[in-house]
């Protein structure tokens, strides 16, 4: 795609003192920078947002499989009444880890993969604002994820008799639920699984907040010339709102987890009932985080769908400003409805009524989005490519999840639905039908850009069909299971309850869903290996990322684009000449590329040591307190070296090499 060359004056630049050669330079510390490396060294030290995004995607898909296997084990156990496939303790560990894994290790990082890959490309930037901080976020996420999941290894070691915690408790995998309600998570009632959970989540929280700060700065400051806020793609808007939600929602959970840690490790009394602690406070703090977290999971999905629908309807998004505005309203209201997770805790009339009404109010901006999506389709020329099929499935399934959400908002009716399978059905429709479907749509949409290979064959349609069918067969009957009284988080149930037939249906559905995900992975791998070349713009796209080659070169844009409208590429192709994308005169020194670095990885490794050894300290493993301090030392050392090595960087000259 050749861009017209509307020229602006080249910005004056001070002479850069970095050297331009493709040889690795030395940092201020005198160490050789890991620039221009290849293979694993390159991946470990990269600061390139595209590679970091790809790694987020790989890790999150891996954890999606882990969480999925946990889900299948849960469903297999529940298929028959009074089944004994897994023990009660294992079952509790499975559903705890399933929830934690899916929320923190699968859906959030998969969204993050899209943020990383797309944000600079869609706003016409070279990279994110702080590339090394971005690498740090990735590796800290990996550190936290490994800390939590290592508990399975220690549980296995315990089964073989190689490892026994000092208090003799054998629940080494977290088993208190992803919500971790005190006092069940107190040291009286649960073993070191809870410690793994606490420290893993704390580390993950650092990763999320650091990444979000980075994205906000990037979106606010790194937009290409002419890309005003109200010209941003909706996906970028939703990224911005999600990032704001993360930076405001994670502090409360950080504090709550910290207080829980003080209870468990240092004998504080935040949630210790006999000393005056109020467990209900944990619930409040958790849901002050937990409800915005729900929107952290769904808003990126809405952004992705808002990008895909216009492309395949060949029409602009209907009601752009209203969609953006309603996204912001959803985000803001997300902080005002947390207690609707606690309608049965005896909040009192006024609080219950207030939270009930506010929850209903959220249905309005959500409905606005759905109306606008239909408005986008209306009058378009709808092409049923795979991403579009997934997006349409998303709207349908998300609507169903939304409607059961409205049912929950009526607090007295919710007193029957709360903690029953009705709720399980509701949030799986929202999270699978909402988040996962749209993330799959996004993968089908942007993978060609990511790897430069195009999907081929009809497998994509089969994936969408299997996933949607599996989703409905699994979760639709759960509405009825909830209505006939099956509570959540139960390891088994009696024959006489009448829950058997539909549980069997759900289990069958879960395996259909698993087949769908398996087909998807197969399609993904075969496309990456053998797909035909995708070309720059395979879908007739509308936004800036489709103006550059696929896969994008390391420097993204050879010339910084100048944008004159919303949907710049569409306007460029079909609009008036005045709306064509311009470009900034390139810098004669070439494009400045940041240097790669080992130190973000080092700082994250410190968190890994810290988290793991704090959990093991609770198990009574000797010297772990000192190792934890050493871990903190590693992090501090990493940050110092990172700061002292200097920014570095080198220049590339795409115009020379390309022309």
């Amino acid at each position: 795609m050749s861009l017209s060359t509307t020229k602006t004056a080249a910005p004056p630049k001070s002479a850069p003192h970095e050297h331009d050669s493709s040889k690795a330079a030395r940092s201020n510390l005198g160490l050789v920078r890991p620039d221009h490396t290849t293979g694993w060294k390159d991946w470990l030290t990269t600061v390139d947002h595209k590679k970091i995004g790809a790694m987020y995607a790989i890790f999150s898909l891996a954890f999606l499989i882990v969480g999925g296997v946990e889900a299948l084990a849960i469903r297999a156990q529940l298929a028959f009444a009074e089944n004994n496939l897994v023990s009660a303790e294992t079952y509790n560990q499975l559903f705890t880890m399933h929830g934690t894994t899916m929320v923190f290790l699968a859906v959030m990082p998969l969204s993050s993969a899209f943020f990383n890959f797309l944000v600079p490309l869609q706003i016409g930037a070279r990279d994110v604002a702080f590339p090394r901080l971005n690498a740090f976020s990735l590796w800290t996420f990996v550190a936290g994820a490994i800390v939590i999941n290592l508990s399975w290894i220690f549980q296995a070691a315990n089964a073989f008799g190689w490892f026994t915690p000092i208090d003799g408790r054998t629940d080494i995998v977290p088993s208190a639920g992803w919500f971790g309600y005190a006092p069940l998570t107190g040291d009286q009632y649960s073993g070191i699984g809870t410690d793994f959970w606490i420290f893993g989540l704390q580390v993950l929280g650092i990763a999320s907040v650091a990444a979000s700060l980075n994205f906000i700065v990037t979106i606010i400051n790194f937009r290409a010339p002419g890309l005003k806020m109200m010209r941003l793609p909706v996906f970028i808007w939703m990224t911005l709102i999600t990032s704001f939600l993360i930076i405001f929602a994670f502090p409360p959970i950080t504090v709550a987890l910290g207080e829980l840690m003080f209870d468990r490790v240092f004998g504080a009394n935040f949630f210790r009932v006999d000393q005056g602690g109020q467990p209900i406070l944990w619930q409040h703090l958790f849901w002050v985080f937990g409800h915005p977290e729900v929107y952290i999971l769904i808003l990126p999905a809405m952004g992705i769908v808002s990008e895909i629908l216009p492309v395949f309807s060949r029409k602009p998004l209907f009601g752009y400003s209203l969609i953006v505005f309603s996204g912001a309203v959803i985000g803001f209201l997300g902080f005002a409805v947390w207690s609707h997770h606690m309608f049965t805790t005896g909040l009192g009339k006024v609080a219950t009524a207030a939270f009930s009404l506010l929850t209903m109010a959220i249905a309005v901006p959500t409905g606005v989005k759905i109306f606008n999506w239909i408005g986008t389709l209306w009058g378009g020329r709808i092409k049923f490519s795979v991403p579009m099929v997934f997006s349409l499935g998303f709207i349908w399934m998300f609507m169903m999840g939304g409607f059961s959400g409205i049912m929950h908002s009526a607090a007295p009716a919710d007193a029957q639905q709360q903690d029953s399978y009705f709720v399980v059905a509701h949030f799986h429709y929202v999270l699978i039908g909402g988040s996962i479907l749209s993330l799959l749509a996004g993968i089908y949409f942007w993978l060609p850009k990511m790897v430069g290979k195009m999907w081929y064959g009809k497998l994509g349609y089969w994936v969408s069909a299997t996933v949607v069918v599996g989703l409905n067969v699994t979760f639709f009957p759960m509405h009825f299971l909830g209505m006939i009284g099956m509570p959540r988080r139960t390891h088994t149930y009696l024959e006489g309850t009448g829950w058997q037939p539909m549980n069997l249906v759900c289990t069958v559905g879960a395996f259909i869903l698993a087949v769908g995900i398996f087909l998807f992975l197969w399609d993904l791998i075969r496309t990456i290996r053998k797909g035909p070349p995708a070309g720059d713009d395979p879908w007739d796209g509308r936004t800036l990322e489709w103006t550059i080659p696929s896969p994008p070169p390391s420097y993204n844009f050879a010339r910084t684009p100048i944008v004159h409208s919303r949907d710049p590429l569409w306007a460029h192709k079909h609009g008036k000449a005045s709306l064509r994308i311009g470009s900034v005169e390139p810098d004669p020194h070439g494009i400045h590329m940041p240097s790669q670095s080992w130190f973000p990885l080092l700082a994250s490794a410190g968190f890994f040591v810290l988290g793991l050894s704090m959990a093991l300290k609770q198990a009574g493993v000797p010297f772990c307190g000192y190792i934890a301090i050493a871990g903190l030392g590693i992090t501090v050392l990493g940050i110092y070296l990172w700061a002292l090595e200097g920014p570095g960087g080198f220049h590339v000259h795409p115009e020379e090499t390309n022309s």
Partner: protein
Amino acid sequence: MLGISTKRLSWLGVPLLLSGCNFQARQSFVDPKGIVAQDQYDLFLLTVWVTAAIFALVGGALLWTVWRYREKKTDDPNTLPSQSHGNPLIEIGLIGVSVALLVVIAIPTLRLIWFTNDMPNDPESNLGSWFDGETAEGSDEEPLIILAKGWQWWFSFEYPQLGITTGNEFAIPAGKTVRIELRGEDVIHSFWLPKIAGKVDMIPGRNNNMWIRTDEPGYYYGQCAEYCGEAHAYMQFRTEVLSEEEFEKWVAERRETPKPPAGKDWNEFISLSASAPEELPDTDIVQGARHFFGKGTCVQCHTIDGTFAAGKLGPNLTHVADNRSLAAGWMENINPDGSINREQQLENLYEWVRNSEHIKPGNLMYYDPNGLQNVELSDQEVHQIAVFLQSLR
């Protein structure tokens, strides 16, 4: 295309699912029998109808749009569809309609929040004005109060006005308002009796309460609905709604305390048991009682009214053989029709004491540091304890 049509096909499965679903199931909240549950069900149905109507409209619009504006072979590839990007009037209109529909749900919701949260017996309560009867303001009659406590993993029910304590089962009179005080004794539990009323949590350190009332005598099943640890799934309870006379009878029965298997009274039995066991008759029941109070360490956790067994950590066993269930509702103790097969019951009691760790994994009777895991009991001794337990009615 495929994705859409399959999605439609999946709807064909719904009737099949419905046929596999028994809405009269014993914990079904769509088969309400109490006033609170009935109101909650009505509100639920209202939300279902409202959302179903929206779903039909919006979903229909979606399907129609997708069908109508699909790409056709006849479309001219060189022209673009209309590039409209918004219509404020339509959007404001749709927002208005959504708000109106939500108001339809909001008004009865608010009404019911006040209705279910007003407690009988509270000075500022308006419950009396909601429906006529004994809870009206200024009425002399006190509602029956039940103190329900959640333990890991069983329920205890105390009647402070009547001086009765039961475990995992309680009875209430039909047609009377009952106020239930809820307490969590260790971790958070939740009291859920789906056919009578929605759940309210039992939170340690916090006083919660609810009221229930039903006019239909019968037998109802409930369960803990807040995840409370390893044996959460096994934490169930049952409620018998009795006519007023039957309730009086039940209260009288439950107030009776068991007699010792030998000797004049329990003190004598215990002293004999300690000083001169050979003077006691060598029957299973006597030996069982001795194990219960001695070697079996049962008294550390269980109470039998009228004796010095006053443990708090386990259910009250005063009338354990009259209970319809064992092991927090997990095992049947009485036939569904109410008749009693004594041999079967003995077998159950034996099984429960002998194999509790398999029947209810994680239960504290076995796994507590002072529990049965550290008590050596032969099969015969367990049998004797079961015989003694069966005598408690």
